[in-house]
């Protein structure tokens, strides 16, 4: 299973779903077509916004860093924040907001503790450039990278419950190694959380 399949599995049919940082609407399209979900995206990238509108998806042009007060408490069944938290100015605040808006939330993160990033830094002495972190340090949008451990500590400190978690290796699959020692062998982690 890949991350999108897991997300699909975690979301009940006919749910109301908000995707914060929805990109070109890849996930929303699948949820809307295959899971009967009512979907809304939030995005700031202009090309992505147009791609969403072109696919008939509802999308709001909004900067998540400027706040999400316009979304009511528990107003969506599920809030998705996929590969987005690391580009935000205030990840902790964003997590609080995500769990306020959604009855449940699904968050995916790139794991900076993955063995490839550790080795890359150790041997090259340069900021790691890997499959899940493909850009140079001065070009990346990622300003708040964390490891799986870091993320779970933050959830704990913020009284956010982790209801489910799944780990994927750098080829996007759920391997035994990633399951046994995720902080070392998972490139991506996906969490189902709630307040």
């Amino acid at each position, binding site marked *: 299973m890949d991350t999108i399949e897991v997300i699909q599995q975690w979301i009940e049919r006919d749910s109301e779903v908000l995707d914060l940082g929805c990109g070109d609407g890849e996930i929303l399209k699948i949820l809307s077509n295959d899971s009967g979900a009512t979907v*809304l995206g939030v995005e700031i990238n202009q090309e992505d916004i147009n791609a969403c509108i072109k696919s008939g998806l509802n999308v*709001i042009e909004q900067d998540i860093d400027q706040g999400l007060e316009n979304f009511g408490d528990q107003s969506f069944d599920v809030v998705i924040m996929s590969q987005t938290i690391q580009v935000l100015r205030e990840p902790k605040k964003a997590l609080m907001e995500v769990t306020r808006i959604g009855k449940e939330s699904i968050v995916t993160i790139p794991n900076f503790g993955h063995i490839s990033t550790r080795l890359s830094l150790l041997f090259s002495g340069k900021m790691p450039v890997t499959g899940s972190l493909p850009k140079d340090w001065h070009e990346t949008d990622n300003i708040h990278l964390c490891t799986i451990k870091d993320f779970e500590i933050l959830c704990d400190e913020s009284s956010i419950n982790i209801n489910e978690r799944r780990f994927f290796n750098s080829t996007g699959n759920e391997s035994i190694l990633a399951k046994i020692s995720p902080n070392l062998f998972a490139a991506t982690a996906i969490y189902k959380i709630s307040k």
Partner: protein
Amino acid sequence: MNESVGIVKPKKLILEGKLDLECGQSLEDIEIVYETYGNLNQDSSNAILICHALSGNHHAAGVYEGEKRTGWWDSLIGPGKAIDTNKFYVVCPNNIGGCHGSLGPSSKNSKTGEYFGPDFPIITVKDWVRSQALLSDSLGIKKWHAVVGGSLGGMQALEWSRLFPDRIKKAGIIAAAPKLSAQNIAFNEVARQAILNDPDFDAGRYLDTNKSPKQGLKLARMVGHITYLSEEAMKSKFGRDLKEDKLNFVYDAEFEIESYLRYQGDVFSENFDANTYLLMTKILDYFDPADEYEGDLSKAFESIKAQLLVVSFTTDWRFSPDRSKEIVNALIAAKKKVSYLEIESPHGHDSFLFADNRYTRGLSSFLDY
């Protein structure tokens, strides 16, 4: 791509039935002038209604025989344009109360044979939308593919989605607001005072005496025009440029912006009716769909079924992005299908008239899907 619809001719029809107005009065034998572009398909499912703003009219695209000036939304309506006339049948009426051919204050009352003038009833956006629904009936259009408008036109598109949820598939609400602010009403009041206090206004009966309150109308337009432009646009277009290269210590128009505004005011006062202008500003002031719902906009939106696109422009201070967001947020709270675009544009409120790439792409993607 991106050609004009070419030479167009306005059409006319008389609406069937009576229109009961919100003010309690009613209108009959309503004559409507309108233009159409493109072709209606067999199942009449490709029709788009264009709603005009305060000073607009039915001439939205193309040119009249022997004239050069294109319609007010020619930048967006045409073959291959954002509102693509190769795909859609586009209808733009002159609203009732207008002064370009549809029943309005400068029409003669069929019962008395006199000009309506100041006796023309004060109508509302709701009344307009109901009159446009009668027009839809006459044209055989049961359901609009979309209703689209900018500014006051956007308010009509919004009202369409509320009042006739089953007759509209999509609504494009551009550079609009859910209601006017005190500042908006204040500017309108200055415009009204300028007209009402013109000695040639004659309590609105100027047509009977062959006069026209041009000075008042000019002043009203000048004030309005300032609110349509952004500080940025005025600065880059005029700055403090002088008509001559020195100050002359006189009260004539010395700065370029002064002569520009005077010119705009003059042209407008030659082509617009003062009673219509008063009426249009009143229609704007009265617009407030949330009023019946104790100010709860999302409750006012409950009936909506259409998919909506709300668009705002960064330098618009007349109806700023925040005003559009009020609409968007109420739609989200009401769980309606809405998309929102905030377009960077230097042209202030007038931005909705310009074919900015992102804006036109967004609008065409929305309409085409």
